[in-house]
């Protein structure tokens, strides 16, 4: 089913009198308190719509970027609505206040929160729609609604049955119920069952529409020439040669550089190539940036405690001085680009006091606010048509709305509808990276090998400094995303004397959350140092962890399951070794065992990764498995290959030939064991990315006795 036919379907249902739609918001803690549904014209604030042709349209408050909300959130509604799964259609919702994230209060997708945050709201929407359909049928049959039941898209009364489509219009006139009771999970038919994706048919035929694919008459394509150095500005330029390229229509100046506006991508690209040699940049202080020097500077900083005190108890220094054994280690990780497969793009049309935007975004509300300011229109006049996202990983959630803001600037300056397109080079060199981080950890062990002192200094840029999130998430100089995974580590919370501090240096490099955010480096540091401690204490890494995690039953269960499934107790095949890691993030716990070997060229090969994941209630186990496999692959890119370096302010990599990522032949067999638990539902898009670095590094150590403390992992070639 193409995006177009889905839209046509929706239009059909609008024209035909709309049928039933349910619109309301669920106060965060309260039970469902419906707002009255609109009367004639459907209000756009709807989560589910039943049309006279029996189709059920689910409107997604979250963006589908691969993580499977297109299917998972529809399952929540379908379970309670009791509709025919084959009649479900899914749409991205427009940008509107009713679609604000239930936990964050703005429309957005991120933090592995979509499923748990919508668990009640979407189920309630389904239950309300069902109740209204039942009431409509009861009125038709002049009977008590309590005597009716529903069955896969029908309301049934003895031998009589009416389809939801037949009842849709009448249901619209029903009062939404004040309160609905959600099904007990023992009665679930769909939730918890492995369910195939609803977006596969359009994605395997090329019909799925991504932002990149947006086309309409009059839409131009623009490429932007940006400063080769972060923070640089255009000093002067000569656009004559660019304008002489066939197909180039305009060159306009915008805050981030110069946009070459042309009739198609290729003309814009050739125009920009022609322009670039005729731009004089005021590079500014960013021109001296050097990532190797920066890392050295971080190393120096880490020698003294940071100004941000993240956790403090007892006297860590004194406890270190008297400990039976001290282990000191430094771990570092480089800048990384997200490199979603679909390069960034954004189409904008400014017309009649409205700003229309077509893009794949994780941050609708922020984009709306930024666009409104730039376009000079009220926020509600910014219409966002969310397209499928060709990957997000955090890059499409910029607090500054960088790529959307820029596109609005271009459309405004050019006076025509424009789609900005980033090349891969623009993407790799364009900033908003996972920041470079360094951890220095000093641990004191007692005579039995138990940690008694923990001094931990973290150095790296704050992701949230300077953003609207700073006020909530940066406290006393500590950005919560810099320390997540350390301050809340179950290893650390039992240590009697501890000091965790942070240095948050500023650099001109824009930084951003990258799938699993702070955990990308904290899980590497924590699970590596614990492995080092195990060896220092002369204990088995599994047994050592299990002893430290005795107070954490969910961790223990995940750890033991992964170890069992991986055959930890048995020797690995010849030439291979195993390493393990366990980490909690986004409310889920995941344990991983990596089995590795090293080839003749000292390249690390990861053969198998065995995962056990506890994310509380599992809604779609098939989707969970896919997210864990994918997150491991995403993490492995950073473990084995990816690294951005800066020299003279320039990013030295530019495309996939030198910013290398995991390819199919490198993909290990990833086994996923989903552990059901009664714990609060957690997220699943990100958690598996975090510990894989340490699991692999620990396996490499077990095999080679070389402790690798920098990502990507590289063995010394003798």
């Amino acid at each position, binding site marked *: 089913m193409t995006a177009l036919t889905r839209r046509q379907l929706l239009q059909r249902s609008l024209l035909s009198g709309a049928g039933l739609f349910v619109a309301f918001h669920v106060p965060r803690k309260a039970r469902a308190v419906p707002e009255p549904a609109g009367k004639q014209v459907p209000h756009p604030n709807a989560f589910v719509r039943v049309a006279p042709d029996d189709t059920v349209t689910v409107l997604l408050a979250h963006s*589908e*970027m*691969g*993580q499977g909300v297109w299917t998972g959130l529809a399952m929540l509604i379908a379970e309670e609505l009791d509709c025919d799964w084959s009649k479900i259609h899914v749409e991205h919702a427009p940008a509107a206040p009713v679609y604000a994230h239930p936990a964050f209060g703005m429309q957005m997708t991120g933090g592995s929160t979509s499923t748990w945050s919508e668990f009640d709201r979407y189920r309630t929407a389904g239950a309300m729609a069902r109740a209204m359909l039942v009431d409509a049928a009861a009125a038709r049959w002049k009977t008590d609604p309590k005597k009716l039941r529903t069955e896969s898209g029908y309301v049934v009364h003895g031998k009589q049955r009416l389809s939801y489509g037949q009842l849709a219009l009448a249901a619209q006139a029903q009062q939404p119920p004040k309160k609905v009771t959600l099904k007990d999970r023992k009665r679930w038919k769909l939730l918890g069952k492995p369910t*195939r*994706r609803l*977006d*596969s*048919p*359009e*994605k*395997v*035929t*090329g*019909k*799925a*529409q*991504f932002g*990149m*694919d947006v*086309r309409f008459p009059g839409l131009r*394509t623009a490429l932007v020439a940006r400063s080769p150095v972060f923070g640089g500005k255009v000093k002067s330029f000569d656009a004559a040669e660019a304008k002489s390229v*066939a197909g180039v229509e305009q060159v306009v100046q915008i805050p981030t550089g110069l946009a070459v506006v042309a009739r*198609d*991508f*290729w003309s814009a690209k050739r125009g920009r190539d022609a322009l670039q040699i005729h731009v004089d940049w005021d590079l500014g202080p960013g021109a001296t940036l050097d990532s190797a020097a920066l890392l050295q500077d971080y190393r120096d900083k880490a020698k003294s405690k940071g100004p941000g005190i993240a956790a403090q108890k007892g006297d860590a220094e004194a406890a270190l001085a008297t400990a039976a054994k001290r282990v000191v280690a430094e771990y570092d990780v480089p800048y990384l680009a997200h*490199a*979603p*497969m*679909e*390069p960034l793009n954004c189409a904008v049309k400014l017309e009649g006091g409205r700003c229309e935007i077509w893009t794949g975004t994780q941050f609708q509300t922020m984009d709306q606010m930024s666009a409104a300011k730039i376009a000079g229109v009220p926020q509600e006049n910014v219409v966002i048509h969310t397209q*499928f*996202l*060709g*990957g*997000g*990983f955090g890059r499409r959630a910029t607090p500054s709305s960088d790529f959307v803001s820029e596109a609005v600037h271009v459309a405004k300056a050019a006076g025509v509808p424009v789609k900005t*397109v980033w*090349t*891969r080079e623009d993407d790799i060199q364009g900033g908003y990276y996972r920041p470079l981080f360094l951890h220095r950890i000093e641990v004191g062990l007692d005579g039995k090998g138990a940690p008694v002192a923990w001094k931990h200094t973290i150095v790296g840029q704050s992701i949230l400094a300077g953003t609207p999130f700073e006020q909530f998430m940066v406290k006393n100089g500590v950005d919560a995303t810099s320390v997540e995974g350390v301050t809340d580590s179950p290893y650390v919370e039992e240590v009697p004397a501890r000091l965790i501090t942070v240095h948050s240096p500023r650099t001109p490099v824009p930084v951003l959350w990258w799938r699993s955010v702070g955990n990308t480096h904290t899980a590497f540091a924590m699970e590596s140092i614990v492995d080092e401690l195990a060896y220092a204490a002369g204990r088995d890494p599994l047994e050592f962890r299990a002893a430290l995690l005795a107070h954490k039953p969910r961790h223990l269960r995940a750890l033991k399951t992964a170890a069992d499934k991986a055959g930890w107790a048995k020797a690995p095949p010849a030439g291979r070794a195993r390493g393990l890691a366990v980490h909690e993030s986004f409310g889920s716990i995941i344990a991983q065992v990596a089995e590795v070997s090293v080839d003749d060229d000292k390249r690390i090969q990861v053969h198998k990764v065995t995962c056990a994941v506890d994310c509380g209630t599992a809604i779609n186990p*098939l989707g969970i498995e*896919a997210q864990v*496999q*994918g*997150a*491991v*692959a*995403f993490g492995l*890119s950073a473990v084995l290959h990816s690294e951005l370096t800066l020299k003279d302010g320039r990013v030295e990599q530019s*495309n*996939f*030939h030198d910013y290398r*990522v*995991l*390819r*199919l*032949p490198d*993909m290990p*067999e*990833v086994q996923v064991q989903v552990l059901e638990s009664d714990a609060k539902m957690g997220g699943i898009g990100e958690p598996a990315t975090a510990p894989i670095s340490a699991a692999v590094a620990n396996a490499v150590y077990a095999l080679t006795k070389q402790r690798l403390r920098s990502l990507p992992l590289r063995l010394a070639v003798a």
Partner: protein
Amino acid sequence: MRLNVNGTAREVDAPGDMPLLWVIRDVLGLTGTKFGCGMAQCGACTVHLDGQAVRSCVLPVSAVAGRMVTTIEGLSPDGSHPVQKAWVEADVVQCGYCQPGQIMSAAALIAHNPSPSDDDIDLALAGNICRCGTYQRVREAVRKAAAQRRAER
């Protein structure tokens, strides 16, 4: 310039150095073929040229005049190609952006080699990057599709 795209002769007005990818997407409006890198590194732009998988982002359109180009839209009218069916069955896709390219590479592989070994699969799809990391299910789906192809013969 005359091209044969998905079995139909098309007259296109484009500079000869324009890569086939942009002719397909911007001139012909077939957007199933994707742009991912522009330098034959990622495979998102994979199409068939006379039945061979090629990277259309580095192929000047002048080089393909008169030859048969098949894009994802032309692989089957309705998603019924064994590779597409196997893809749905194995629940491969995530964001989906790389998938037309993966599918075109896989379809070319099994057309030429109905019994690919695991190494054959790894080799044939090594040029198709998936940032969502769907590789494991890609492998599984290619095996499935090849088996189905063999059964149909």
